[in-house]
């Protein structure tokens, strides 16, 4: 289809400045490596990778919200918590926790639908703080349900039949597969028609509206998708803990980490959250044992990037080299 977009005058329209087969091939190689990771990497690395992919899911979702749809949510920890508790509830009712992950994500998404009708009455900063009020309300409601462990929390049932090795492998694979689905899904979404609307909203909301883009309903979709993504992250978090507690599941630090990772990597780019998550883990591993300092340094770095290099690390790389690892647009190339 791409060849018909411009007359054939020695140019061709392509997505990537490398062969398309390399994208598919590269994805398969990377996917195969991380799927085999529990058998080829030391257990300590697998545990780090587990946390890495958890944050990657969160950063990808936050990038979709703030980077593309212009919604600076500071309440995503609410959907992480709801995902964790939805999984806990389903497991308490006898479902296999691993099989229940998609259902837990769906529950978080369903809760997000009516929430959008309230939140979308506010804009900008008011929208942001209102998302936090919703997250705090969700936590306070969960706290008052003694069946779900109230303030002290409950261990995740349905995992005791697994040996420690099996448990470690399975919880890693659950996180990794969720991250794979979320990343590939987000990438395909951004390449789709909806992605085109999102890119136009990111660049200029007014122009997008006047060109007939359904901005509000697109926002609603994105908010619900991000709630599902964060809900899935909450579900795999609940399995890898494996203990569900309000103070951890609804922790605002999740939000800080996903937000900082997205800004540092490059907000509004596909590659940004991946780069930002890598930067986060390099910092985290380096500053281990220094308490909250990793978050302080990470936050200071994010503030500096937001002010002086708003494109983030990936924006800098792209501007300097014109290289796109995961292209979502098209470019004209000389034959």
């Amino acid at each position, binding site marked *: 289809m791409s060849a018909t977009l411009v007359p054939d005058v020695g140019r061709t329209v392509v997505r990537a400045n490398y062969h398309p087969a390399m994208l598919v091939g590269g994805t398969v190689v990377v996917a195969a490596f991380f799927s085999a990771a529990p058998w080829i990497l030391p257990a300590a690395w697998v545990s780090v990778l587990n946390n890495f992919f958890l944050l990657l899911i969160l950063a990808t979702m936050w990038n979709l919200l703030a980077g593309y749809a212009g919604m600076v949510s*500071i309440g995503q920890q609410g959907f992480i918590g709801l995902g964790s508790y939805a999984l806990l509830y389903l497991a308490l009712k006898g479902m296999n926790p691993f099989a229940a992950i998609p259902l837990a994500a769906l529950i978080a998404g369903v809760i997000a639908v009516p929430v959008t009708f*309230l*939140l979308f009455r506010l804009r900008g900063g008011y929208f942001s703080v209102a998302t936090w009020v919703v997250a705090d309300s969700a936590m*306070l409601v969960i706290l*008052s349900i003694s069946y779900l462990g109230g303030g002290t929390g409950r261990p995740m049932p349905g995992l005791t039949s697994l040996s420690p090795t099996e448990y470690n492998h399975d919880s890693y694979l659950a996180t990794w597969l969720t991250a794979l689905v979320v990343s590939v899904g987000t990438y395909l979404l951004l390449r789709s028609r909806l992605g085109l609307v999102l890119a136009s909203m990111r660049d200029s909301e007014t122009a997008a509206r006047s060109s007939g883009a359904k901005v509000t309903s697109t926002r609603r979709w994105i908010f619900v998708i991000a709630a599902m993504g964060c809900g899935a992250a909450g579900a795999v978090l609940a399995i890898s803990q494996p203990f569900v507690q309000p103070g951890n599941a609804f922790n605002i630090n999740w939000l800080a980490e996903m937000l900082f990772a997205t800004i540092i990597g490059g907000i509004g780019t596909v590659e940004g959250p991946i780069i930002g998550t890598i930067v986060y883990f390099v910092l985290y591993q380096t500053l281990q044992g220094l308490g*909250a300092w990793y978050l*302080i340094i990470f936050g200071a770095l994010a*503030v500096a990037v*937001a002010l002086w290099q708003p494109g983030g690390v990936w924006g800098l790389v792209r501007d300097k080299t014109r290289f796109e690892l995961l292209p979502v647009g098209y470019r004209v190339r000389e034959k």
Partner: protein
Amino acid sequence: MTWTNVLVQGILFGGFYALFACGLSLLFGVMRIINLAHGDIAVVAGYTAVFLVPHLHIAEVWGFVVVVPIFALVGYVLQRTLLQAALDRSPLTTLLVTFGLSVLIENLLLEIYTANGQSVNIGSLIGNSWQVNSVIYVSWFQLVVLIVAVAVLGVLQVYLSKTSTGRLIRAVSDDREAAQICGANYRHIFGIAAAIAVATVALAGISYGILTELTPTTGGSQVLLYAFEAVVIGGIGSLWGTLIGGILLGVAQQIGAHYNPAYQVLAGHLLFLAILALRPQGLFGKKEALT
């Protein structure tokens, strides 16, 4: 009689929430931004009163006199540097930068002073109360805070409508370009607005530290959320609406707490969400303020 007491205590708490909120409301009115570190600045002011004022060898109750002017200066400098730089980029950057600031402040306080609660000690003054009857006690201190809140809002109203600087603030908030053409230095005006906002929230933060304990996370999960709810309930852009909003929030929380202490904060959130559903412009707000 129990319900009268719930109402009285709610109104008294409302004074705090209005004091938390007026700076947030002012900054939004003038610059169209929300400072997500608003609450954390209040906590830093409270910590300053706890840890620095004792070194000055003055009675702690005088902490206000020292700390509030310092924070007015802090507000001005913060606006002229970090916040203005963010504002020059985009509204999105302002949210990101103030959120980053909020996380930085909370974690620095956590690292330096641990997660323990801190209280501003004003000695026996805090215990004084006026016993209306067998059920209703009115804490003198909370009554003073309510009166101060009303006074601050009143002074702010007069300042904005009568003085030349107040007129400049309103002019810049109405139409920045036109005000600039008439010779207004909007950056300086923004700085003054931020100085007022930060000074009032510092006053609120120290007062809150006298009434209850401050922890590193009080600023975000309590001060910012309550201030924000008071503004939205009362109506964005209305200073007196903010007072009513704060009082309604206080009353809702006390009604919730009357049933179960665990429902105190949730009841406030529910009132906020109900207002959002039924009257998003708030009780005294104008519809246009939403866009």
